[in-house]
């Protein structure tokens, strides 16, 4: 058996952990200030889009850790988002009208439920590789509408549930725009997620993630618990997906199976692949792309003169086709895909 003696981790250029942590904190604060400034400059609809980017960023950042850093492909993150979103809807309904704090409780509950769900999938995933894992997670994504219909007393089938969200706190002023409040909520979650993940993957856990991805046998010899690392990666990533889903529920003020189709899960994979696998900056680009590309095609279809029916078809489907083509081209042509990441490290 040909195994190398040490897991291939990029340990050579390490600087002490503490200054890094501070650096991430500085970055997070700077980003927060910029976002707040941006929300004052943007009109309401743009703020809503900005909020959507924030919610997507939670998910793509988590998926980057799982797929990019740990090499596990999940096609079921849309379903994990759905668990977070439905939990928020149900908790908010129970606690409606008791104040702003209920939202925090609901979102935390959403994260908790998604984490448990992710833990279950992750336990199975740790024993599976490649297409088997992809197939299993795809099956998870497919059952979302089936579960919503089977337990329709709880989830209200295809109609879904509405989500109660309080108006912005009065302390911010009576005329504080709702969309700005949404953007603040979403980006608070997103920045916290990215900060925590960045800190996490720079440390021991991150090295274990990469070691397992690059060479399981070598990682095992170096003392990394492979199965535990894989399950943990899934759990962390599921928690992020749960937060993202919870934020989506808050933004849309409703949840339904139609909001979490299979194509959502595929979009998420596409976003992190195109953004650049394995880097959290790539997750940011991916999240931006997920909002910007449909918006661009929308403007495009408004420019060309076609009947409303055709325009509607184009609007719904052109982004799909463009996403797909971009994904294929990036995978075939551009380095930075999954394999080139691994190969480059192997050759180095």
């Amino acid at each position, binding site marked *: 058996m040909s195994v190398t003696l040490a897991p291939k981790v990029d340990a050579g250029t390490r600087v002490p952990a503490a200054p890094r942590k501070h650096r991430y904190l500085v970055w997070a604060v700077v980003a927060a200030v910029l976002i707040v400034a941006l929300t004052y400059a943007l009109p309401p609809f743009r703020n809503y889009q900005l909020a959507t980017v924030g919610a997507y960023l939670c998910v793509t950042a988590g998926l980057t850790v799982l797929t990019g850093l740990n090499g596990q492909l999940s*096609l079921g993150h849309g379903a994990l988002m759905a668990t977070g979103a439905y939990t928020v809807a149900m908790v908010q309904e129970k606690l409606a009208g008791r104040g702003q704090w209920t939202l925090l409780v609901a979102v935390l509950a959403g994260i908790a439920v998604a984490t448990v769900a992710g833990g279950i999938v992750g336990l199975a995933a740790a024993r599976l590789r490649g*297409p088997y894992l992809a197939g*299993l997670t795809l099956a*998870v994504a497919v059952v979302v509408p089936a579960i919503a219909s089977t337990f329709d007393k709880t989830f209200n089938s295809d109609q879904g549930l509405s989500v109660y969200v309080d108006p912005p706190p009065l302390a911010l002023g009576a005329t504080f725009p709702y969309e700005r409040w949404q953007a603040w909520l979403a980006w608070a979650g997103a920045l916290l997620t990215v900060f925590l993940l960045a800190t996490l993957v720079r440390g021991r856990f991150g090295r274990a993630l990469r070691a397992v991805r690059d060479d399981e046998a070598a990682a095992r010899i170096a003392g990394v618990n492979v199965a535990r690392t894989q399950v943990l990666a899934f759990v962390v990533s599921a928690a992020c997906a749960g937060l993202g889903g919870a934020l989506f529920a808050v933004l849309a003020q409703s949840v339904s199976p139609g909001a979490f189709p299979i194509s959502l899960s595929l979009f998420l994979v596409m976003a992190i692949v195109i953004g650049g696998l394995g880097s959290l900056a790539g997750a940011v680009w991916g999240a931006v792309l997920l909002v910007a590309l449909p918006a661009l095609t929308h403007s495009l279809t408004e420019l060309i003169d076609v009947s409303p029916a055709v325009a509607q078809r184009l609007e719904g489907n052109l982004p799909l086709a463009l996403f*797909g083509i*971009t994904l294929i081209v990036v995978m075939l042509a551009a380095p930075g895909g*999954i394999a080139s990441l691994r190969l480059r490290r192997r050759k180095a």
Partner: protein
Amino acid sequence: MDRFVFLTFDGLSRGAVYAAFALALVLIWRATRIVNFAQGAMAVATAYVGYSVSAATGSYWLGFAVAVLGGLLLGAVTERVVMRLVDHSSHLNGVVVALGLVLVIQGVLGMIYGNEFRPAEAPFSREAFTVGGIALLSRFDLFVFGAVFLVVALLVVLFTRTSVGLRMRASAFAPDVSRLLGVNVGGMLTLGWALAAAVGSLAGMLVLPTELGLHPNAMDIVFVSSFTAAVVGGLDSAVGAVAGGLIVGLLLSYVSGYLGATVAPIAVLLLLVVVLLGRPGGLFSRSAARAV
């Protein structure tokens, strides 16, 4: 009891389609170690074309032939233009590219045909014959059995009795050696993809009339069920794919019949989990399976 008999025949009929579809997955897996996640979308695309031809000419069978031949062509093009260029050093790459294909195909279909369900007529009556008051099979079910049996028989003959089949097996088993011996390995791969896609298209034409109709996403659940069938039988085993298809078909039929149609996808997920965790090599694996 009547209901049980009816559900059994219904399940076998569904299972035959899943078997054909799973067989198409196994064909490509054995040749290239890629699970073609785009197979459902490819089958829907050819079915749309087939039904368009039927609508334009008034002949179901012309549309049927166009769909299957279209599958042959689409499979060959997919292999030549896309899959051949995939870097196989990571098993994730093939999956991700196939998912890209799914998005492209579903997007293009949606743009051309819209996202409403369109009727997919069956060529034969779906009214079941009754024997002694028990509903058994419809003409369409018989057609499904006949078509799937014919396909399986043709594939068996192709792979065991012809020189092309031998070359295809050789290219899959030992590409480098085959190349040295003068086998056109690339051509065999293209042929394999073409055949698999044609079988997938045929399965699509057989399953769509029994579902809600034509829709860009119509084959999503069929794909997951067939993937489960292929895993149940072992991704490497053609016989296993057929057996797995029948098992999944029966399971789905009983679950939909006794517990409700919405429970069926959940049952498929549970079966997949149980098999993957219990016997990842499939129920029919003999040799030690490669690490999954």
